[in-house]
């Protein structure tokens, strides 16, 4: 065993350090105890953004349940979430009884002292907190055209269906069309100078000031810091024209430029 430079030769090397860290985790805020309804809704969400939930720790929030809602079937719920690839780690809110039931399922009881309240509609759409959701393991692969700066990424060729481009830590600019089924992701802003027909997700690490700019909006999905809109919820008058997309409080706004 080599001796540590600052430690004495006879004191053993520490096996760990104890530290505190803050993580942003997606929260699923239950509004009822009907697990079938939860399953249906989760299925839809996971279909929309399968990678957001794969191996992602998730917290179950019970504070939105109506009083006297009754017992939650935790074994069913936990099994359901694991089935969708999530890792339920704990609960917050709820009654003593619910806490006991959760503890029986080895879920942690988390305090909610310094957690910001999130409106129920958006609760399950928080982005994946993992540092780099790179498509390495997926069959789809990214277009390789890096800009000069590490914090920026420039793509000049069309982004095709099945391709994903991620700009970690910065902005993503695409000077070409983005096809249906293609995915753009950036920790900062996204600029598209061409038709945007695929998905665009800005503020992947939770930057609520990130924006998406595009010349011709035909997107399947738009998201800023996890607040998203699918094509159905994008008004017709902003389709096919230059727009910017940004967060105003908890509302994702799409505005003509």
């Amino acid at each position, binding site marked *: 065993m080599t001796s540590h430079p600052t430690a004495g030769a006879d004191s053993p090397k520490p096996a760990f350090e104890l530290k505190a860290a803050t993580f942003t985790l997606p929260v699923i805020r239950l509004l009822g105890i009907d697990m079938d309804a939860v399953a249906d809704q989760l299925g839809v969400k996971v279909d929309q953004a399968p990678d957001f939930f794969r191996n992602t720790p998730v917290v179950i929030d019970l504070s939105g349940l109506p009083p006297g809602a009754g017992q939650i079937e935790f074994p069913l719920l936990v099994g359901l979430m694991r089935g969708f690839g999530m890792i339920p780690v704990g609960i917050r809110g709820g009654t003593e009884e619910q806490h006991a039931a959760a503890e029986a399922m080895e879920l942690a009881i988390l305090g909610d002292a310094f957690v910001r309240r999130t409106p129920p509609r958006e609760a399950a759409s928080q982005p994946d907190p993992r540092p780099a959701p790179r498509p390495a393991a997926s069959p789809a*692969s990214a277009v*390789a055209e890096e800009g000069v700066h590490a914090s920026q990424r420039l793509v000049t*060729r069309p982004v095709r269906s099945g391709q994903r481009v991620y700009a970690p830590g910065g902005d993503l600019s695409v000077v070409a069309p983005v096809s249906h089924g293609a995915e753009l992701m950036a920790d900062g802003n996204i600029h598209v100078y061409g038709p945007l027909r695929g998905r665009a997700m800005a503020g992947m690490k939770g930057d609520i000031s990130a924006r998406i700019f595009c010349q011709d909006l035909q997107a399947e999905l738009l998201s800023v810091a996890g607040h998203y809109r699918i094509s159905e919820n994008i008004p017709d008058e902003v389709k096919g024209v230059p727009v910017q997309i940004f967060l105003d409080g908890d509302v994702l706004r799409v505005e003509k430029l």
Partner: protein
Amino acid sequence: MGKTTTSAALAMGLAQRGHRTAVIDFDVGLRNLDLIMGCERRVVYDFVNVINGEANINQALIRDKRCDALYVLPASQTRDKDALTKDGVGRVLEELSKTFDYIVCDSPAGIEHGAHMAMYYADDAVVVTNPEVSSVRDSDRMLGILSSKSRRAERNEAPIREYLLLTRYAPERVAKGEMLSVNDVREILSLDLLGVIPESKAVLNASNSGVPVILDTESDAGQAYHDAVGRYLGEDLPHRFLEIKKKGFFSRLMGG
């Protein structure tokens, strides 16, 4: 979809212009290029035999009876598609490229192993699509794979040159809104068209009789393929057969 028909037609077109051309069937297990080329009764050795070293390339190549510059390398019907190894395919293509000007690789459908092998070493790719949404979407996916999973992409070389060929185009059905128009396809895929092949009985007849449709110079499809070969070789030709044909002698006056 028309990939094999197109491979046969383009290969014949290139060979007719005097370029030594080989056309390889990558659809192991479902071989039909030799049928369309009309040489299925002359197959002795195949692509997989050559990869496995059971035959040399000259034994397996079948010379076309109509055109001296054209050779066919048929696929095996009895082997598994995994018989196509990346190294093996690379060796065969390397050897062919010493004596041939053009090597046309006829890809199987889908984005599986066979298709990957057919495109991996490519310099140019012709993506064949039909004027319908699902086909165009698949082509878009294929174009994405071309730009990220080829040897050129892995080596960071200049990307594969992409060409788009639209087959089974029926202007009457476009007018009725049953098919995507040329402009729709061009806009969705943001690629220029190498050619538009009209929906034609000539294509089916040609396949059934083992004559590449490009040899049927009377047919609109044959002429459209002929134009496509010209464009590929750098000629500037206007697209034909995009409008609904008028009845009677008037259409002949207008040149079809």
